């Protein structure tokens, strides 16, 4: 199937979908839905160059399996659920590895896109260092397909660490957790992950280390924290962090905050009966609220931070993005008009 041609031929409003795992994050029903399922080829995996080119419809897990055979990974680990690389990128989803390796915007080095009129174009390339032309790939990361369809992405890969270990500190005091997180993010460690979690009245801060000396590094973090446990077989701990970024029937709000806001966010989670997981050093947090007064939580968060409503119950009407700087909104509208003048992509 030629997605670009299908896009050009389609009439009315259109949405391009991957595996459909983040449907609740979109708004409105399009006249036509086009799928990337035909674009399911791992086009290139350049082992020696640590790069790959993936069709938008490639399930992320399948690509990761292939990279792992060569001791490599795409350092993008959102909750999986069968999501495609195109969907992950278009929704700018991410997981705990974001702390060390950046998000989709930092890992995608090139992109092939189709505009609503069927124009196929590329930006970037497949080398990790490249400043030729505008970086349109960044514009398409997190665009939810509203500027065009992502057909193919080029990504940079990283070596899989030979071993990992995690230092976990527990407390039910939001301020103590905030201090622990700040101490870790300001220490001269190289952490693969630095996460916070709050659930059922208690919290943790956890730092993950990778490499030839993962345990020794985690022990250094343990000494810094004073009271922390070391988990060597730590995959499950981090899998739980990823999983808490989704709510099958409830609400998930992604908050862009600062490191020093963590205690306040933990208190909001506590007071609203929400679960919080997040990247402490980035100030990026997901509050999961399975039941209760969803709008009260949204309003509490939006009172202070930029916060996007991702998962939500089907009957909850709330805009995804909340307040955006008026100048930025005006500029985004101008970009939208140039890329999709007929406004068909929703």
């Amino acid at each position, binding site marked *: 199937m030629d997605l670009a041609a299908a896009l050009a031929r389609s009439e009315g409003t259109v949405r391009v979908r991957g595996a459909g795992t983040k449907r609740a994050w979109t708004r409105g029903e399009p006249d036509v839905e086009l799928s990337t399922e035909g674009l399911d080829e791992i086009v290139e995996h350049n082992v*020696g160059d640590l790069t790959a080119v993936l069709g938008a419809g490639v399930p992320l897990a399948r690509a990761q399996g292939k990279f792992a055979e060569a001791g490599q990974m795409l350092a993008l680990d959102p909750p999986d659920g069968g999501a495609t690389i195109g969907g992950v990128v278009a929704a700018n989803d991410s997981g705990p590895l974001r702390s060390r390796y950046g998000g989709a915007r930092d890992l995608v080095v090139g992109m092939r*896109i189709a505009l609503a009129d069927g124009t196929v174009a590329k930006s970037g390339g497949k*080398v990790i260092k490249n400043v030729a032309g505008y970086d349109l790939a960044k514009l398409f990361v997190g665009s939810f397909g509203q500027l065009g369809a992502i057909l193919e992405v080029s990504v940079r890969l990283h070596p899989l660490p030979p071993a990992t270990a995690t230092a976990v500190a527990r407390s039910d005091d939001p301020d103590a957790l905030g201090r622990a997180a700040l101490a870790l993010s300001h220490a*001269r460690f190289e952490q693969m992950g630095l996460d916070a979690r709050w659930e059922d009245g208690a919290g943790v801060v956890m730092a993950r280390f990778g490499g*030839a000396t993962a345990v020794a590094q985690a022990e250094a973090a343990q000494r810094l924290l004073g009271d922390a446990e070391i988990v060597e077989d730590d995959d499950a701990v981090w899998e739980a962090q990823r999983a808490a970024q989704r709510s099958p029937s409830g609400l998930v709000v992604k908050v862009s905050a600062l490191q020093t806001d963590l205690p306040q966010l933990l208190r909001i989670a506590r007071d609203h009966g929400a679960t919080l997981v997040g990247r402490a050093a980035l100030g*990026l947090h997901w509050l999961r609220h399975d039941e209760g007064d969803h709008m009260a939580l949204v309003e509490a968060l939006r009172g202070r931070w930029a916060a996007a409503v991702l998962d939500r119950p089907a009957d909850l009407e709330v805009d995804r993005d909340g307040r955006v700087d008026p100048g930025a909104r005006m500029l985004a509208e101008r970009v*939208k008009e140039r890329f999709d003048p007929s406004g068909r992509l929703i």
Partner: protein
Amino acid sequence: MTAGAVLAPLIEELRAAVGAEHVVTHEHQLRTYESDGLLQYAVTPGAVVLPASTGEVQAVVRACHRAGVPFVARGAGSGLSGGALPVEDGVLIALSRMRRILEVDLDNQRVIVEPGVTNIAVSQAVAPDHFYPPDPSSQIVCTIGGNVAENSGGAHCFKYGFTTNYVTGLELVLPDGELVRLGGKGVDPPGLDLLGAFVGSEGTLGVATRIWLRIVPKPESVRTLVAFFGSPVQAGEVVSEIVSGGIVPGAIEMMDNLSIRAAEGYTNAGYPTDAGAALVVELDGSEAECEARFEQVVAICEDAGADSIRVAQDEAERELIWQARKAAFAAMGRIAPNYYVQDSVIPRTRLAEVLGRIEELGREYGLQVANVFHAGDGNLHPLVCYDGSNPGEAERAEECAGEIVRACVEAGGSITGEHGVGVDKKRYMPEMFSDADLGTFQRLRCAFDPEQRSNPGKVMPTPRLCGEVPGPYRRHPLEQAGVAERF
């Protein structure tokens, strides 16, 4: 009519906006600004204006917009692609007076600066516990505003990334004078990543007047060595071994014999002048990991048959090892009176083949080509040496450099890794991008700058008009109902 007469009413407005003493109009003073770091190109601007605040930049840009006069923003003028080359009869906005560090927030690991702040000043402001990773060789003079325009890299970007990975917020004056704020201290604000599109846009989308930067803790440990090999190809194999061993060096840099000889004559760093290639490898990170990995690197170099390996024993020796690498461009004057530098990128695995091709081209054109490169990310800096006083040699050097760029693109690479397209490489853009690609770039340009007055004539190989957005913008029924919203 003279240029001065066309600009006269505008110049009065500029004087009112920033003060007469900050508007340069004398011919001999204007000449100071006729080139950036790429001296092959020179254009005298109609006027140079030095604003001191966002408000003044806005007033200047508004005045240019009303008068229909193009403008070019300039930082330190150290760019290597002619990106800050003035437009004849246009206004050059020099941001050198906007050099305040507005906030250092160590708790949140953010710094807010004006565009004229130098790159090194950011790291100095957050020392000793933090640093700002992008470190172009010109970091002592180059400005953050210029770094944002060019998406500057540096020796440490293989591991740490580029300017775009460290900018979290921008305050922009758009080409019509509107002020817009994108992002801030937080990451991932909802909405389109316009910030990501702006960084690296080479001054064609507006002027950044305030920049939010992310800083990171200094690594606990740094270990540096330089190993010498018979040839760049042999050293290139070592780079592949290191990287495929799962090691991500903080920096990994290579110099060929010609560069070694030039740099050694200049710095006396102790590089053997008969070495075919020098490979500088720097590891940083936690002490335990650094030690373990450093031993691995030494073993890889030994196994690959390094002629000698020198491990920096202290900071002074580390500085010395780096001095030779950082002086390579400046030292090239010892080899030839002029050189033409390229900035192409190749997939690292194609190194041997591309180096072979470069050697062949050097022979074909009868010119010496020195090679200095960021080996980790495949960013080559071939320096085509020539003597401009020999008739036709400069043209031959330029042609040879162009062939090198083509060879790199054919190998799956890029025409520029960190210097930018500017005026210098725009003619190579069609080697990398189709007409549809360039047309799509133009859509972004037109959204920001429909009249194309911000740094015109850069990046795009041929001028294109913006045209009107076809048809009225239609709101979707769901938007009208308030159910959905558009970006």
